[in-house]
C-alpha cells in the first residue's frame, strides 16, 4: 500500500496543474473524535468549490480541492500537508485545531503558501507567520466578550472558569483571567479537564463548593456537552457562558433540556439566522450533507469563497494571493472580513442565549458585538475594496417567532 501511495504521490508531484484548474488544499479531521468539526468544514469547502465552479468561477479555471485527513494528531496533520503539497496547490484551507496548525507552520513558511483556518487560539497569529490567515474571531477578542458579558450583563462577581487543557483552553483561560482582572474580578475557582474526559463531577463539585455565581467554560464540543449536562444533573443552577462549541446542533442534541438558559459565544448561528442568503445556504448544506452546519462551517465556507475571490483576482501565484488577501475585505455570509496586521480577519461575535421550545434549543441574541475594521477603523490595514456588497444582516436582535418556525420545519 505504501508503495502505491508513494507512486501516486510521485505521479501527482510531476503533474503540473493544467490551465483549466487551480488546486486548493483542504486539510481537516475526517476521522477520530475531532472529525465532528473537521468533517463539517470539509463539507463547507466542497460546497463552496461546487458553487464557485458552477457559477463559472475564475475565467477558464475551475477550483479543484485536494482533501486530506489530519486525524487527531500533529503527525497526521503534517503528513496530510505533505500529501497536499505534493499536488502543487496554490493555497491551503487548514484544520481548525491549533495544535495541528502550529505543527504545520514551519512547512507552510518554507513552502511560502497561504494557509487559512478558522481556529480561535490567540497565539496562532502572534507567531509572525506571514502565510497564515485566520478567519474566525480569535480568543483575544471573543474571550473578552465572554468575560465582559459575564461581569457587565450577568453582574458576576464570583465567576468560575472551566477550561480544557489543550492549547485552545489554555489560551482562552489566560485571556479570560486577564480580562476579568481588568474589571476587578477574580475567578473563585479555576478547573481543568482533558479533551477526552467523560466525567466532570469533581470539577463541578469544586465549582459548587466555591459558590460561583457564573460558570465560564472554554471547551471542545464533546466535553462542553458533558459539562452542561452534568452541571444541571448536579443541581448547579448558575448561568453558564459557554464557548462556541455549545452553538453546535450536535451538542444541543446531547445536552437536551440542560441547554435552557445557556449563554453561548458564537461568530454566527446559521441554523437560526433569518437572513435569506444564510437560510438558503443552510438549507442547501443540510440537503447536501444530511447534517446541520455550525458557526465554524459557515465561516469556513466564507474563508473558501474569500480565497477563491483572491484566486480570481490575481491567479494562482501564492505570494499574490497573500498580498491580495491582506489588502481586501470580503462580505461573506456571516459578516465582513478584513485582516489586521496580525492577519486576523473576523471581528464580530454574538452572545446567544438558548431556550428550550418544544424540545428544541432555540437561540436569541442576548448581546451583539461588532468591531470589524470598516466600522471601527482601528486596524492598521485599512480595507480598500469590498468584494461583494450586501446588506449587513448579522446581529439584528432576537429572531422572530415565524422565522424560527419556518426554520424548525426544515
Amino acid at each position, binding site marked *: 500500500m505504501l508503495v502505491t501511495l508513494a507512486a501516486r504521490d510521485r505521479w501527482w508531484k510531476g503533474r503540473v496543474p493544467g490551465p483549466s484548474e487551480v488546486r486548493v488544499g483542504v486539510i481537516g*479531521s475526517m*476521522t*477520530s*473524535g*475531532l*472529525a*465532528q468539526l*473537521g*468533517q463539517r468544514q470539509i463539507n463547507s469547502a466542497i460546497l463552496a468549490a461546487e458553487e464557485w465552479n458552477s457559477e463559472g468561477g475564475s475565467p477558464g479555471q475551475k477550483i479543484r480541492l485536494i482533501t486530506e485527513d489530519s486525524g487527531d494528531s500533529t503527525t497526521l496533520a503534517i503528513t496530510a500537508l505533505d500529501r497536499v503539497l505534493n499536488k502543487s496547490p496554490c493555497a491551503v484551507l487548514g484544520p481548525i485545531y491549533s495544535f495541528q496548525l502550529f505543527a504545520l507552520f514551519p512547512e507552510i513558511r518554507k513552502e511560502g503558501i497561504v494557509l487559512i483556518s478558522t481556529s480561535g487560539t490567540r497565539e496562532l497569529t502572534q507567531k509572525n507567520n506571514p502565510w497564515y490567515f485566520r478567519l474566525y474571531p480569535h480568543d483575544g477578542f471573543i474571550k473578552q466578550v465572554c468575560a465582559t458579558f459575564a461581569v457587565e450583563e450577568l453582574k458576576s462577581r464570583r465567576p468560575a472558569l472551566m477550561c480544557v*487543557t489543550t492549547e485552545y483552553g489554555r489560551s482562552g483561560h489566560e485571556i479570560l483571567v486577564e480580562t476579568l482582572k481588568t474589571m476587578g474580578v477574580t475567578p473563585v475557582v479555576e*478547573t*481543568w*479537564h*482533558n479533551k*477526552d474526559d*467523560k*466525567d*466532570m*463531577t*469533581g*470539577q463541578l*463539585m*469544586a465549582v459548587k*463548593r466555591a459558590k460561583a455565581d457564573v460558570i465560564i467554560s472554554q471547551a471542545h*464540543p*464533546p466535553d462542553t*456537552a*458533558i459539562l452542561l*449536562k452534568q452541571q*444541571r*444533573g*448536579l*443541581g448547579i443552577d448558575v448561568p453558564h457562558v459557554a464557548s462556541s462549541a455549545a452553538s453546535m446542533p*450536535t451538542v444541543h*442534541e*446531547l445536552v*437536551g*433540556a*440542560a441547554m435552557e438558559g445557556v449563554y453561548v459565544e458564537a461568530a454566527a448561528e446559521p441554523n437560526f439566522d433569518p437572513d435569506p442568503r444564510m437560510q438558503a445556504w443552510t438549507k442547501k448544506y443540510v440537503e447536501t450533507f444530511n*447534517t446541520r452546519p455550525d458557526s465554524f462551517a459557515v465561516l469556513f465556507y466564507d474563508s473558501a469563497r474569500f480565497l477563491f475571490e483572491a484566486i480570481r483576482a490575481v491567479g494562482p501565484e501564492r505570494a499574490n494571493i497573500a498580498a491580495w488577501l491582506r489588502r481586501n475585505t470580503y462580505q461573506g455570509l456571516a459578516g465582513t472580513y478584513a485582516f489586521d496586521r496580525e492577519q486576523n480577519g473576523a471581528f464580530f461575535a454574538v452572545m446567544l442565549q438558548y431556550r428550550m421550545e418544544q424540545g428544541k434549543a432555540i437561540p436569541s441574541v442576548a448581546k451583539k458585538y461588532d468591531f470589524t475594521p470598516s466600522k471601527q477603523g482601528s486596524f492598521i490595514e485599512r480595507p480598500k475594496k469590498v468584494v461583494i456588497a450586501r446588506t449587513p444582516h448579522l446581529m439584528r436582535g432576537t429572531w422572530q417567532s415565524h422565522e424560527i418556525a419556518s426554520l424548525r420545519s426544515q
Partner: protein
Amino acid sequence: MVQELISGLAMGCVYALVSFGFVLVYNAVGAVNFAHGEMVLFGGYFGLIATSWLHFPLWVALIFSLAAMAGLGLVYNRVAYYPIRHRPAATVIIASIGMSILLRNSALALFGPDPLKLDSFLGDRVFSMGDVVVGQHHVLIIALTLILFLGLSFLFDRTSIGRKLQATAQDQEAARLMGINVNRMITLTFVLSALLASVAGFLLAPVWFLDPDVGLVVILKAFIVIVIGGFGNIRGMMAGGLFLGVVEVLVASHVTSEYRDVISFLILIAVLVALPRGFFGEKIAQKV
C-alpha cells in the same frame, strides 16, 4: 462529599463491569483483548440502533443489544481468536488490536464522528436531599452492577458451567483431560464478555455519550482497575473499579483537576510497587 462519593461509585461500578469482561477473556485465552473497549462502545451503539433507527422502547433495545452483542462475541471468537488459537499470545493480541481498529472505524463509518446519546431508563431525573443532588441513573448503575456481580459470583462459584469456565481459564489442558469441551467454554467466555460489554455500554452511553473513540478511554480505565484490583477475582475488579472511580472524583474536586489523571496513574504505580498483584491478586503458589 456524599454527592461526590455516589458519582465516583457509579463511575467505579462501570469501570468494574468493563474490567470484568476484559479479564474473563484474558483468563480464558491468556492474551489481552484490546478490542474490549470497542465492544463496550458497540453495546451502546446497538442500543442506539434499536431506539433511534428501529424505534424500539428502551427495554427492548437492551434485549436487542444483548442479542446483537452475543452475536458479535461469537463472530469475534470465530474470526479473531479461533483460527489462531494455537499461535503465540502475541499473535492473538495483534489480532485483537486489528479488531479494535476495525470496530472503531466501522463505528465511524456507520454512526459518524459526532457523539450520540442513548437515553437512560430513568431519564435525567435526580434525587434531591438538601444540598445533595444525585442522578437517578447513577443509582441505577450502582444497583445494576451489584446485582450483576452477585449473579456472576453465583455463576462461577455455584454452577457447573461456571466451574467449567473457571477450570478452562486456569488450565486448558487439564480441563480438556477432565472432559470439558474447552473450545465451547472459550466461546461461551467471549459471549459472556460481550454481554457484560453490552450492559456497560448501555449504562455508560447516557453519561459519557457514544463516539468512536470512547472505547480507547474505557479500555485505559479497565487496565488501571485490573492492575489495582488484581487479575484474579471478581472482588478485585469491584474494589479496583470503585477505588479508581472515587479517587478520580475526589482528586478533581479537592486536589487538582488539571493533574487528575497524573495522580490516578501515580496511584497505579504506587499500587504496583506496594502490591504487585493488586488488592486481591492471587498468589502464584495457589496456581501450582
